């Protein structure tokens, strides 16, 4: 189905926001001003956006340690996120969570997660809630090629099948879990979706560096899971991560020229621009204008994050039900 001009512009803008958010963090982290562990989502934008462009606030997502892209795509506030990562008390989680724990439950974003594999069971619960409510909403769990090896993921898949939860397992295969290749760690012949199939789910596969592939695949997946009684489904997207596992990773496990190659040929933003301009759907100038606007929005979020209030010692003791 043909996307409207507005929908195309919106999808591109969403991917670009994630890209520039991450590129800027990559730069700012070098200065030492940002604390903690940060895992950047650059390279995988087409997955988050191709999935979340189909969702409403009533649909839920559960994310991972590499969560910025999912959060932004699901509608978390850019400024609130930047402030959180900078550790401000004005951040989305008051500076208590940081990069790995961004959440905005009101937006249907049930949390990034520092524990690999912890998200899928949570998405089963959210998917059961969707089933009970019967309004055709869904819960989506994002997992990597590393997380797919956790027992929690296996348990969640089987439980989603037997409870007919309205849960979608989105596997983002970026070929690496930390410093380990998926060819070593994933036993099912380089394939994750076949595991979900074996648990009794209908599965799809798509190109996670191509927005249109993700978007069209997800249209089918969602049409299926939104039908009450159909139960869960799974989809595997082949994708790329452009930066290290975490900021500071020397990435010696990559092959010669690998990063240049994936930036050249597997960049979802470049691919999007080429397809829409080749097809005459958008002009370069349209996209250039968005690029400039997004850069300014990210710049503004950093200005705000730097100026925002810092937390104090008293803030440690709030939001805990019992104090001693």
């Amino acid at each position, binding site marked *: 189905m043909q996307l409207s001009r507005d929908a195309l512009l919106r999808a591109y803008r969403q991917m670009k926001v994630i890209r520039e958010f991450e590129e800027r963090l990559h730069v700012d982290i070098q200065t030492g001003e940002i604390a903690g562990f940060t895992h950047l989502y650059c390279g995988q934008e087409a997955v988050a956006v191709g999935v979340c462009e189909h969702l409403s606030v009533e649909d839920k997502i559960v994310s991972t340690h590499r969560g910025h892209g999912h959060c932004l795509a699901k509608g978390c506030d850019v400024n609130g996120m930047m402030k959180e990562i900078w550790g401000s008390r004005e951040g989305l989680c008051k500076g208590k969570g940081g990069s790995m724990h961004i959440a905005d439950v009101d937006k249907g974003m049930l949390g990034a997660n*520092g524990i690999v594999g912890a998200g899928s069971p949570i998405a089963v619960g959210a998917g059961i809630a969707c089933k009970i409510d019967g309004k055709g909403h869904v819960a989506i769990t994002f997992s990597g090629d590393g997380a797919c090896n956790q027992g929690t993921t296996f348990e969640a898949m089987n439980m989603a099948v037997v409870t007919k939860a309205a849960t979608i397992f989105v596997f983002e295969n970026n070929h690496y879990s930390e410093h380990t290749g998926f060819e070593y760690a994933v036993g099912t012949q380089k394939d994750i979706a076949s595991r979900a199939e074996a648990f009794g789910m209908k599965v799809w596969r798509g190109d996670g560096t191509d927005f249109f592939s993700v978007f069209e695949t997800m249209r089918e997946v969602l049409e299926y899971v939104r039908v009450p009684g159909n139960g869960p489904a799974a989809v595997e997207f082949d994708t790329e991560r452009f930066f290290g596992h975490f900021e500071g990773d020397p990435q010696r496990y990559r*092959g010669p020229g690998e990063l240049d190659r994936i930036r050249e040929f597997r960049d979802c933003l470049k691919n999007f621009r080429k397809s829409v301009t080749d097809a005459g759907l958008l002009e370069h100038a349209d996209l250039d204008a968005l690029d400039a606007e997004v850069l300014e929005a990210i710049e503004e979020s950093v200005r705000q994050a730097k100026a925002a209030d810092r*937390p104090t010692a008293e803030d440690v003791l709030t939001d805990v039900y019992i*104090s*001693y």
Partner: protein
Amino acid sequence: MAKMMYRDAVVSTIAEEMERDENVVCLGEDIVGGMGTPGGPEAIGGIWSTSTGLFGKFGADRVIDTPISESAIMGAAAGLALSGKRPIAELMFADFIGVSLDQIWNQLAKFRYMFGGKTKCPAVIRMAYGAGYNAAAQHSQAVHQILTGMPGLKVVMPTTPADVKGLLRTAIRDDDPVIFLEHKALYGVTGEVPDDKDFMIPFGHARLSRAGQDVTIVSTGLLLGFCEAVADKLVAEGIGCDVIDLRTTSPLDEEAILDSVEVTGRLIVVDEAPPRCSLGADICAMVAEKAFASLKAPPLSVNPPHTPVPFARELESAYLPSVDKIEAAVRKVLSYR
């Protein structure tokens, strides 16, 4: 003696023990680093550099890089231990113990007793713990609080590179499951380490790191250095502190603590885990029971608050016991006459 970093004391001890005993095997996530990648095995090594070079020396059968499957890693350690091997399993962050707790708590820890003493279970579970990196609630916790209370586990918390060497060797040669907690903020600390390849430190023997007669301060890990700084500062005021490094929380060297408190009459325990049911509370209660007559002031435990570990720099430093908080506690127990 050789100068060595805390992390290098870990690797070199493992290597020496693997050399000495072919039944010693290692397993854990990314302990080889680079498996199945263009860069190949050992392209990068584990994130703490606590297994560097082991794969090259001992090969894939004995240095097992695992998928992200903590429950299976700990269970495999249990199975290896019941099958004549001496596994050293690594949990990248102590916080991930949640994923694997059954295999440690209900399996490894209980075999010897449940099976009527008929079996040995020589497994070492190493893990990086503690705050100081702004790694937030799921990557910063001190987990000795939950593990120390579990019958069937020995719990080791080394503070210096020499103690890493002596205690890790004891752990590997021990016939029972040992939890070996490495503070991630200490990995880069350097110290003198004995060369002797049989250098061992027995469990349950605390180390006196400062001697004084007025206050007993008990701690271990990162916070021990804070306690030493307070003790050193107070010398100028004529206040003397015994600073006791526990080294192991189970077994606990009660004697060292009681002997000291009998002289000082004042006890402070400085503990990195939250206050309720903590190591601090446990030791204060033990001293109240066994040295009540010697006490000149109520025993005090200095802990973080009853909250998860917060992210932001300001929050994490307010969370952790600090030199100032420890000094205030010392002055408080001294204010009782």
